[in-house]
């Protein structure tokens, strides 16, 4: 008992330090986003905001107005919403089919999905970007198909794990009650899968929203910038960096996703576990 207590205390201290280390950069960005550009230097980056260095909301206003932030925000939003919606709809149906039909083709398909999680993005990014160009997938409106491909592995894996826990008898009852397979899916299976929808949705949202490399490679960056790309463009020519507005922009970017996460995190945990325990 005594020993357990000591272990617990050590762990508490350890994880406190760890969480501080994680939250520290965010706090730093928050502080610096309120400083004047001249006050952000390597030496003074860790100083708290004072009356002398404070820029008020000037950085935020500058980021919002000058740099095409609104357009980038809009593009990111469109990409995130379409991609996540597509992933949720397609992958849940696919997982249901794969688990319930379960013939050789389906098994092969399932392992292919799992395998796609193992392959690193960097391995195929250059072939992918040229392919995307030639297929016309390089606009914010159809980049979602590329995201569907990359997101499908994890999503199908998680949905399939959950579908296996749904008793077959419920679907049989629906068949006898007069549902065709499509009705069975939308009236019976989909509502049961709701927790998994939420957790997959959050995971994919965070990924797509924060993704930098894929849009950078695929999108025509003279026309379309997503927020992660936009931040990069705060480094102007001649080595000039507008640090203040950049920090403000970063703050505004992470805020929505942090809020979404905090609101839904309890679903993530229950969703991941519900798929994992019974397999």
């Amino acid at each position: 008992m005594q020993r357990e207590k000591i272990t617990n205390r050590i762990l508490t201290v350890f994880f406190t330090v760890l969480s501080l280390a994680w939250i520290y950069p965010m706090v730093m960005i928050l502080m610096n986003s309120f400083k004047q550009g001249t006050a952000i230097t390597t030496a003074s980056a860790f100083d708290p905001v004072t009356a002398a260095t404070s820029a008020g909301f000037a950085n935020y206003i500058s980021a919002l107005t000058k740099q095409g932030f609104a357009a980038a925000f809009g593009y990111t939003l469109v990409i995130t919403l379409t991609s996540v919606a597509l992933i949720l709809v397609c992958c849940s149906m696919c997982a249901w089919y794969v688990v319930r039909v379960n013939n050789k083709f389906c098994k092969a398909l399932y392992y292919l999905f799992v395998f796609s999680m193992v392959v690193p993005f960097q391995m195929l990014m250059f072939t992918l970007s040229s392919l995307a160009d030639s297929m016309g997938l390089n606009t914010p409106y159809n980049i979602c198909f590329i995201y569907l491909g990359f997101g499908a592995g994890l999503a199908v894996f998680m949905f399939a794990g959950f579908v296996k826990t749904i008793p077959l008898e419920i679907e049989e009852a629906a068949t006898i009650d007069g549902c065709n397979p499509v009705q069975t899916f939308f009236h019976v299976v989909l509502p049961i899968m709701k927790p998994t929808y939420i957790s997959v949705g959050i995971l994919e949202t965070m990924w797509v929203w924060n993704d930098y490399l894929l849009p950078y490679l695929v999108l025509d960056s003279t026309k379309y910038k997503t927020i992660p790309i936009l931040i990069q463009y705060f480094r102007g020519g001649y080595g000039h960096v507008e640090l203040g507005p950049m920090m403000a922009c970063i703050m505004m970017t992470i805020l929505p996703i942090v809020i979404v996460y905090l609101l839904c995190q309890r679903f993530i945990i229950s969703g991941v576990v519900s798929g994992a325990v019974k397999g």
Partner: protein
Amino acid sequence: MAEIVLKNIKKIYPNEKTKKHRFGKKAKEPEKKSNLQVTDEGVVAVQDFNLTVHDREFVVLVGPSGCGKSTTLRMIAGLEDISSGDLLIDGKRVNDVAPKDRDIAMVFQSYALYPNMTVYENMAFTLKLKKVDPKVIDEKVRAAAETLGITQYLDRKPKALSGGQRQRVAIGRAIVRDPKVFLMDEPLSNLDAKLRNQMRAELIKLRHKVNGTFIYVTHDQTEAMTLGDRIVVMRDGFVQQIGTPQEVFNHPANLFVAGFIGMPQMNFFPATLVRDGASYQLKTPKFTVDIAPDTCKKLAASGVDAAKTDVTAGARPEQIELVAPGEKGAICGKIVVSELMGATVHVHADVNGSEFVLVINTVDFDKSKGSSFGIGDDIWFKFEPDAVHLFDKETEKNLIQA
């Protein structure tokens, strides 16, 4: 209104399906049914099933697990393909008709309620799919809920109900459809003993309120005996006997049925049947039993002629009576175990190596207790006339034709 005919229905699971899947095992596979016949085509789960279920009849399929009773029911429901044979509902062949068009309703062991819908929505779902007028749906759902006594739970989700209430909802979901046939797959197995007895009684009541033909699957012989107009006993895919509960109990077609129906089990012992003119005698090394004259006539009629035939004899524990020590024709055994069940005492007595179970009324047991009955004591008993069943040693068929 609804007559179901099963003609030579057969179910074969192709061989490849019996292989073990690495994930996502498909339900109802014949994985552990080791006694099933395996042919080139695959494992035969149901063999030549012939049955005519009359309108408004209550037929119970009973048998040990893996005997094909659920598979048969699922074939009638349309959840399982029929490998060969014809299934007729009201004279129409429905082998290839989709489940929803067969006008059947099914109640599952695990209730299979839709967890995301309230009780009301669960019951209304099927009618909603058929695009029935909402007013009619409301009427029907409320009427069914009234019948089953679940009106106060209509707004609840299945999660908030107890097992018995859930099963009522599942039955309610079947009733609102007003189907020709009710199929029930072990609906009471998930309930505790007390609730099961209660629901069983309610099913009997319900059956008379609802017009419909019932086919009911169970492994519980009490349910089979109390509910069924007729019982179908199955084993390893073969139908063993079809008959009324009385027939099945009093004239089991073979050794298996005799052993399966009845609790505690029928006592079996090897014996030799000896014919002496018009009368027969049953001989074992320890005792001899005279066969009742009626039974002798039947035996003679069915042509059991050989002077000596080896048989397996059976006697139900309830048809054994205690007698005074040393009485003529009485059998003496040693008490091995004595279980007080309440109204009756189950006494296990050892006679020359074979164990007999006797069911004795607790009251009688106390009365005849001149000496104390304890473990190791001698007990004298006698079969009631007509109590003895005779089965062929080879074929295990009943020698006495009803």
